[in-house]
């Protein structure tokens, strides 16, 4: 049943939709062309500036590009989630705001900007205002070590993986702050649950990352990607296909465990009890409205993308893709894992908090140790 629209409104909407879609396509093209563009920029900078200034300038450009990507990406991911949810649920999703709803996220962001900023009576004002920022920082600062291509990493530090895990733990502090500072029993429950959940699931994450580190021999994410290069079409050497200990595909198991822990770290269904809509109204962000709530949302989608990107780097070859290498390859692999996360959200029910804890401590951690021992033995036998 199509609604008849006034002509001017239709024209504006169509124009904006076209602009958004063109912008998205342009962004994809840009990502694909980043290696060549980066090479050109490096030459230019190396020619005109001193080496230190050149590296600072290139880092700055890298930071700018990454910040641009990770702030624009949640807009796209929110639209994608709504469309995926809708089609899984046998309906269409946003169709009205722009062509197939592409302007929906912009409209929602604009609406949230205009909402009244309510700070609850009795809330701890400083923590209440600080919590969204801490969560956003925990989600976004970790992108500094993500390698997008050969030499395309903002900060190529030797302890990249350690830094990544450490920064993602900041998210837990942010949620706890939000739950406590809201002066609301439901939010407190949400905050407590999220703290327990994220802290518990750090352990299997760290152990699985350790298995990869053992196979690579370094914590540097760029080295992890380089160790997976080669092989037919640059993909048979991926870690996920390697290391079959007897009949156990150890790395495959490790990938699945990593993915589950990633879901738990980002509070996604089936581990979304901190924001369990049907039990705790909205959990830790019950009292947040307007732009503060939007920041929690942003942080969630940013963390989702980061966890998927990390999984792609550790197991699916990072930027050295099947036949095509470069940022576009990492981008699409992360998007694939994000799609799987969204798919799981709309399919599975939610685990109860004690079942979640017992899953972590009684099942995942022993499996992690088995994988770790298997990798260690295989390493010793191999060498």
């Amino acid at each position, binding site marked *: 049943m199509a609604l008849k629209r006034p002509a001017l409104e239709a024209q504006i909407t169509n124009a904006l939709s076209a602009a958004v879609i063109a912008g998205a396509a342009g962004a994809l093209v840009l990502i694909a062309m980043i290696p060549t563009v980066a090479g050109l920029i490096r030459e230019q900078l190396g020619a005109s500036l001193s080496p230190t200034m050149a590296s600072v300038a290139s880092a700055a450009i890298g930071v700018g590009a990454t910040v641009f990507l990770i702030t624009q990406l949640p807009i796209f991911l929110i639209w994608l989630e709504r469309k995926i*949810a809708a089609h*899984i*649920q*046998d*309906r269409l999703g946003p169709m009205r705001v722009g062509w197939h709803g592409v302007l929906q996220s912009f409209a929602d962001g604009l609406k949230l900007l205009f909402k009244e900023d309510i700070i609850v009576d009795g809330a701890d004002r400083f923590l209440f205002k600080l919590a969204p920022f801490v969560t956003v920082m925990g989600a976004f600062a970790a992108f500094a070590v993500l390698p997008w291509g050969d030499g395309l990493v903002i900060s190529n530090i030797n302890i990249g993986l350690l830094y990544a895990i450490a920064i993602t733990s900041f998210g837990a502090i942010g949620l706890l702050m939000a739950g406590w500072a809201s002066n609301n*029993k*439901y939010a407190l*429950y949400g905050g407590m649950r999220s703290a327990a959940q994220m802290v518990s699931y750090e352990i299997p994450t760290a152990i699985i990352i350790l298995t990869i580190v053992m196979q690579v021999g370094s914590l540097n994410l760029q080295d992890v990607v380089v160790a997976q290069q080669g092989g037919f079409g640059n993909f048979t050497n991926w870690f996920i296909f390697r290391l079959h200990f007897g009949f156990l595909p150890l790395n495959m198991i490790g990938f699945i465990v990593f993915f589950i822990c990633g879901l738990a770290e980002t509070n996604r*269904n*089936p581990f*979304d*009890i901190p924001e*369990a*809509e*049907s*039990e705790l*109204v909205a959990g830790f962000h019950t009292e947040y409205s307007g732009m503060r709530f939007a920041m929690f949302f942003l942080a969630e989608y940013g963390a989702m993308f980061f966890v998927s990107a990390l999984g792609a780097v550790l197991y699916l070859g990072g930027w050295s893709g099947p036949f095509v290498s470069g940022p576009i390859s990492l981008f699409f692999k992360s998007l694939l894992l994000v799609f799987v996360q969204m798919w799981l959200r*709309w*399919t*599975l*029910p*939610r*685990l*109860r*908090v*004690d*079942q979640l804890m017992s899953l972590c401590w009684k099942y995942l951690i022993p499996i992690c140790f088995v994988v770790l021992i298997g990798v260690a033995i295989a390493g010793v036998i191999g060498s």
Partner: protein
Amino acid sequence: MSTPTVYKDLEPDETYAFKPEDLEEDEMILNMGPQHPSTHGVLRIELKTDGEVVKDSRPHIGYLHRNFEKHAENIDYQGVIPFTDRMDYVGSMANSLSYAVAVEKLMGIELNERVQSIRVLVSELQRIASHLLAIGTYGMDIGAFTPFLHAFREREKILDLFEWLCGARLLYNYNWVGGVSHDLPEQWTDRTRVFLDEFAPVIEELDQLLSHNKIFTARTATVGIIPPELAVGYALTGPNLRGSGIKWDIRKEDPYCGYEKYEFDVPVGQGRYGPIGSCWDRYYVRVEEMRQSVRILRQALDVLPAEGDVHESVPKRVKPKAGEAYGRTEAPRGELGFYIVSDGSLVPMRVKGRSPCFVAMSIFHEIAKGEMIADMIAIIGSLDIVLGEIDR
């Protein structure tokens, strides 16, 4: 004589049954307040929790109390039917059917075959629609959002059939004393058959997606166990009682509207994933009941006589002799009964609605002890309450 108006503004603490001074260390009083996404209506449950574990609970009802029984004493018998619709607004064909059965029992009215078959058709379609809502919202409460929408897609088809039949989607005023308000339109039976053919695979899909999902059974099959003696002591009926293993269905025990002619099974909880009487058993009884309803519907469509006036036995003025009667039917939520006392005039003297959700809510505090907060939602959803019926 009514007491003189003496009222005072209640202090906030007075609305709570648990007092803060009685709390032990680490305990907290939490309100699952009247506004909550999962309490299926305006229900307030006060919980005394120790961390995540609920030590005690106290439901407060009455937010939707409209006292239709008082209204019924001022309107004639036919005029009470819209009020009964609004009791259980999710399955309102069953409410008016129960009231009509009670008044017909009081007056001794016999119905012709066509009216009886139509009533069975409509009643079973309403049962399917009501169970779809119960199952869909239960899945959503547990966290699975998708079955809710699939169930509602099917429910829309049933509501379209009802709209075609009598003009209303939710509150029908369809079952009258002595008959029904509208006859079946042409091709309504064909469309119903088409719906049944489309619907049978959807139940299988729902089973695959939700019923046997490991997370769902882990959430529901060990929670909210109602032992059979407790269920009978609290006068539970319908799927709540059958989930505890007791085979008691008014359609078989006290048949009305010709139900004795139809062949169907009465599904009973069997404790497949946990102890008998768990939330999962009650939920699965509803899924199985939908399958049996499809069976009854196909039989009723075959048996429906082509001839018959639906207004044949509707009396011009409903004026029963002085007396009383209790009429009951198997509504989707249990045994819905109406106890009607007549003093020989056009207006009933007393209409008491015996609501199945009322007794289901009264058992809540017994089975919620020792469970976690997340289980409160699972238990409420499995009892399938509608606040309009609890509060009347």
